[in-house]
């Protein structure tokens, strides 16, 4: 470090990080909630990275063609839903390993997006509008940091709903049941395959929406390097959050803050170690994976049917 950082710069960096955390965390949040739902039903979908990228491309294309970014979001969700449903359907077949299928779907979704997405790299599509929460402060930095995309609130609301539904609805209890003991679910006449199929498909839908956020808000354009493994990191994030939807939000914010570290330090003129700070989310993922693999408390809360816990 060449200079002492003044207090003002520090505040700027922190505000930038807060805004960044909210921005960067949103796609994490959606993918993590989707993955959380799928894993709660006893299946892992590693293909959500593919759903995310395809969702991003479809959202951008649909927004460009229809002129409505929210239509794009809906289409992105549907693209994710289709991929998720395919994954769910293939995993229903006997002797299919969900992890292997997930990896295949990761490449499939990404490949599909690249193939159909070529024509949309150049044009400008209408983007999602942010809600300006900070204009009243009169501080332009705060105002900018507090421009929050409505999808962030949708995600938080969804997490609250999921946390409530897992305890208080029949379908929530049935999902937890299939995830923890397929034998018990079968003995009660629940179709385990159907429940997992639905959970995987809906999980894909959420991942697709996460993708829409990437291309329609931040970074806000469609290109092939758009996702940097958020879909995969979300899997680590769900383990870190111990399969709790509300903890998924906190974990996503933490990952988001880590992701915002590099850019916000750059915003106050610290560019040394820029690439290192940009790698923060990946380093965090690595540490979390190591720590949670050792954590016996996490092992206790893992759904019993998951193939990683068997």
């Amino acid at each position, binding site marked *: 470090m060449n200079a002492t950082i003044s207090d003002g710069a520090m505040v700027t960096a922190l505000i930038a990080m807060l805004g960044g955390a909210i921005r960067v965390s949103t796609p994490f949040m959606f993918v993590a909630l989707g993955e959380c739902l799928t894993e709660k039903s006893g299946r892992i979908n590693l293909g959500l990275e593919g759903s995310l990228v395809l969702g991003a491309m479809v959202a951008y294309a649909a927004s460009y063609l229809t002129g409505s970014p929210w239509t794009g979001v809906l289409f992105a969700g549907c693209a994710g839903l289709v991929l998720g449903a395919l994954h769910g359907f293939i995993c229903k077949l006997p002797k299919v390993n969900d992890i292997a299928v997930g990896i295949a779907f990761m490449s499939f979704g990404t490949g599909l997006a690249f193939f159909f997405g070529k024509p949309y790299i150049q044009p400008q599509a209408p983007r999602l509008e942010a809600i300006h929460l900070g204009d009243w402060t009169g501080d332009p930095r705060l105002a900018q940091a507090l421009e929050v995309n409505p999808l962030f609130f949708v995600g938080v609301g969804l997490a609250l709903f999921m946390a409530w539904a897992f305890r208080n609805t029949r379908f929530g209890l049935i999902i937890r049941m299939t995830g923890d*003991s397929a034998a018990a679910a079968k003995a009660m006449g629940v179709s385990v395959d159907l429940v997992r199929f639905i959970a995987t498909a809906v999980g894909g839908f959420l991942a697709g929406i996460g993708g829409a956020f990437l291309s329609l808000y931040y970074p806000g354009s469609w290109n092939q390097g758009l996702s940097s493994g958020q879909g995969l990191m979300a899997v680590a994030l769900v383990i870190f959050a111990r399969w709790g939807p509300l903890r998924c939000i906190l974990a996503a914010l933490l990952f988001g803050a880590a992701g915002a570290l590099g850019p916000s330090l750059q915003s106050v003129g610290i560019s040394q170690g820029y690439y290192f700070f940009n790698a923060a989310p990946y380093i965090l993922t690595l540490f979390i994976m190591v720590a949670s693999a050792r954590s016996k408390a996490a092992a206790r809360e893992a759904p019993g049917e998951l193939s990683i816990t068997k």
Partner: protein
Amino acid sequence: MSALPLETPSAKMAPSLSAHGMTKTFGAFTALGDVSIDVAAGSFHALLGENGAGKSTLVKCIMGFYSPDKGQVTLDGKAISIRSPRDARAHGIGMVYQHFTLVPCLTAAENLVISRADTPSVINWAKERRALDAFMETMPFRVPLDAQVSALSAGEKQKLEILKLLYLDQRFMILDEPTSVLTPGEADEMLGLLHGMCDRGEITVLMISHKFREVKSFCDRFSVLRRGRLTGEGDAKTASVEEMSRMMIGDTQVRERATRAALPEQPMVLELAGLCAEDDAGLPAIQGVNLKIRGGEIVGVAGVSGNGQSALVEALAGQRPLTDGEMTIRGEVFTPKRGNFDRFRVFGLPEEPLKNATVPRMSVAENIAFRSFDKPPIASLGWWMSKAPMRAKAEDLIARYRVKTTSPDAPIETLSGGNVQRAVLARELSGDVDVLIVANPCFGLDFASVADIRSQIMEARNRGAAVLLVSEDLDEILELADRVAVMSGGTITYIAATEATDRNTIGQHMAGH
């Protein structure tokens, strides 16, 4: 279907059920041939038979898991058709399986509510709790409703399973070996309560069992199956145990039991001092186990499953790391590694041998050679393995230990449970044995195999081995052990010479008193 029996449950009558001419074949194999049983309303009926005798097939036909080729089930005199477990449920027929069907991560209350056919989409917990509390008021036993099922004891889980059937208003209950996970005290309490409910005409029970003691003390009638046929039935109160067991095993030749040889005072062989180990979730599984075993002595470790016995055996076998404590054999520290197993002549017969002591897809000969494949005559120069001596040795042991296999080259997973157990015994007992560690050696085996395997263990003792026998079958321990130890809460809470103790005292210690 109304699922909430909130009014006085005794007002509801127990149903009677008969199954007539039940036949079920799987390919050329007749699992069930023309079996009929009658269970009167309000009776406590026992279904006896060895493993593979067709008991499960019969109840699975009644429950709608299998569709019988022939046969008719009548409930309260009316013919009914049951095509799926759902149908059985709608008719008020419920079953408690040997393996719990509760969901571990849900609470007791959640398990009850979700088991209903008409669980509302959005559950109003305040209302459900009031209904559940009112239901529990009418029940002879309670379980904590807010506890996660994974935190309940086996006895509580079993009670919750039965409560679930009552909650669903299933008044014809099929119980599959319901006491196998309970302490003798818990088992007696539970069966006594069920017996009382039967007497009051609230429920009818059909219980699969092979514990004669329980059948004699609690049941009204019994039916016996052998090889898919009904071989007898009668009044459980008047029939003798000999009659029942003859109906169960037929004319099978049972090998003469090896008798306990009187041995002069032997030196101390195996000493366990303060052993501690953790379970997979990192909680203490065994805490400070101390035990000394002399040569020529069998120490039987009794206990309700899940009190650390498996962890103890795994620690001795090197499958689970010790967090504290020390094992010594003849005064030398023993760490469970392959080289040391050989040096100290430690052998073992773990529970579920197909999983814990064999590689299922390798051949019988290879599995039998696990202790000797790296030594002459099978191995030369320490690394070159020749098949011929391995096969010769396997053939010899297969003949001596009467392992029924199509060939020494058959994968060991194709053998029946008793024969897998014999093959492992052949491997472990054929040499000089100083220490033998045995866990649930007869679980799920037929009478002839049980007698055979117990004899082998006794013979090893008579040859001077120190034997640690961990078993959930108290009768087995009382038959074989010179001393009985009781394991409860991960530690040994009681130890006594077998002739100086009795079932009651042991049972009380198993329950943790």
